[in-house]
């Protein structure tokens, strides 16, 4: 998954394997959509300013919102996938580095910010740390997407548009 030594994780059950497979299928489907939408926008200049990057993100965000106008929580993190995520995070956080990992997640973690599927990541909210142990244990994502924590929620973020695609509530025990 990463170049790091593999994290210790319990084997997945058939039900979990199915949930993981569905999650990856949803991610791949989204990537196809993202590629199509990006192709309709003017290309960013080779060396864009912050304004040009922001403008491009907002334009792409509008297209995504329009294309996914019915998006709601749980489309990527379906209940079964949320259970897998909770189990994975629980194992990492109860492992030998658990306390340290949790502390690094909560370091500058924005806490109880309001977030909405299909909306931009809140401008005033810092991006949390994603410890390597967590990233090594969660399903790998393509470069266009990333995981972040907001409080105890795990969010799935489109980094091209800065749009929240989905979030899983309460995956980190307080």
């Amino acid at each position: 998954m990463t170049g790091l030594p593999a994290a210790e994780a319990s084997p997945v059950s058939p039900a979990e394997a199915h949930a993981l497979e569905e999650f990856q299928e949803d991610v791949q489907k989204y990537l196809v959509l993202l590629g199509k939408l990006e192709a309709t926008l003017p290309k960013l200049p080779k060396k864009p300013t912050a304004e040009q990057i922001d403008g491009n993100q907002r334009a792409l965000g509008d297209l995504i919102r329009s294309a996914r106008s019915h998006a709601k929580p749980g489309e990527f993190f379906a209940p079964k996938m949320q259970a897998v995520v909770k189990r994975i995070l629980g194992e990492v956080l109860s492992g030998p580095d658990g306390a340290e990992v949790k502390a690094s997640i909560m370091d500058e973690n924005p806490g109880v910010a309001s977030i909405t599927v299909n909306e931009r990541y809140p401008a005033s909210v810092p991006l949390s740390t994603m410890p390597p142990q967590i990233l090594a244990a969660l399903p790998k994502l393509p470069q266009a997407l990333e995981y972040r924590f907001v409080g105890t929620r795990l969010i799935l973020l489109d980094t091209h548009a800065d749009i929240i695609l989905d979030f899983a509530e309460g995956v980190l025990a307080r």
Partner: protein
Amino acid sequence: MTLRRSLVTLCVAFSLAAPGGLVGGAAPAKPAASKSLVTLPNHHGSLKFAVLGDFGTGDPPEYEVAAEMAKVFAGFKMAIVVLVGDNLYGAERPQDFKRKFEDPYKPLLDAGVKFYAALGNHDARAQRNYKLFNMGGKLYYSFKAPNEGVRFFVLDSTYPVPEQIAWLEKELKGSNEAWKIAVFHHPLYSSGTRHGSDVRLRETLEPLFIKYNVSVVFTGHDHIYERIKPQHDIAYFVAGSGGQLRPGNIDKVSDYTAKGFDTDRAFMVVEIAGDTMSFNAISRLGEIVDSGVVVRRKPSTP
């Protein structure tokens, strides 16, 4: 011990370390090319650069560090600044790029100094497209310095995915430059009690650094300045207090520390001439809090 700025203008130079080694402290004076706030040789034609990390707060201390960098630049013309990550804290709107980066470093940017960024754990990936960070749209990349046969390998240490590690090995293997310098956010060695050494990342990266003769590694993440005792003949630095600071965060009994500074913000200025790299770590108030010379590693003969 720190050297006050008044001493700095004495233009102290350094003795050379043994190959692969590192010495700290000052040696006999040597004429410099111009009056300088640093104790570096300031040779004509050498590669001069600065190292800055964990800086983009937009708060007064960041501006004060930036102002000190501009003062140093007046006598020590660094061509580039390498950023070891956490380039913007909090919001990353266009106005934040201005307030947390473009405004404080305006004198350097206006003078044509080029900044090259690595991404930290708090940085959005969109920064890779930002023209003033010179990342060329890439999360990890390498670039050749304008002179002195130096190549920087800038990594995304939050996501050390196999593709990146394979890329790094290929780049290191294919590099003909005498100096190979790695730049990334998470320190392989750190005595910061908040984060400390990233041992898992070390297990992945250090064998490549050893095998391909990386001489120097610049990192951040812990909000301190620390020079690590050479590890496998590699000089490791933590320069994570360019704007943020965790006062008193260095483990006082750490075996790694060659020199630490955790009572104020700091940045580094560095000069490479031939086989030697001289450096100063400078505080927000202009004190030189560390200095020394690194001699580049050379391929071992079979």
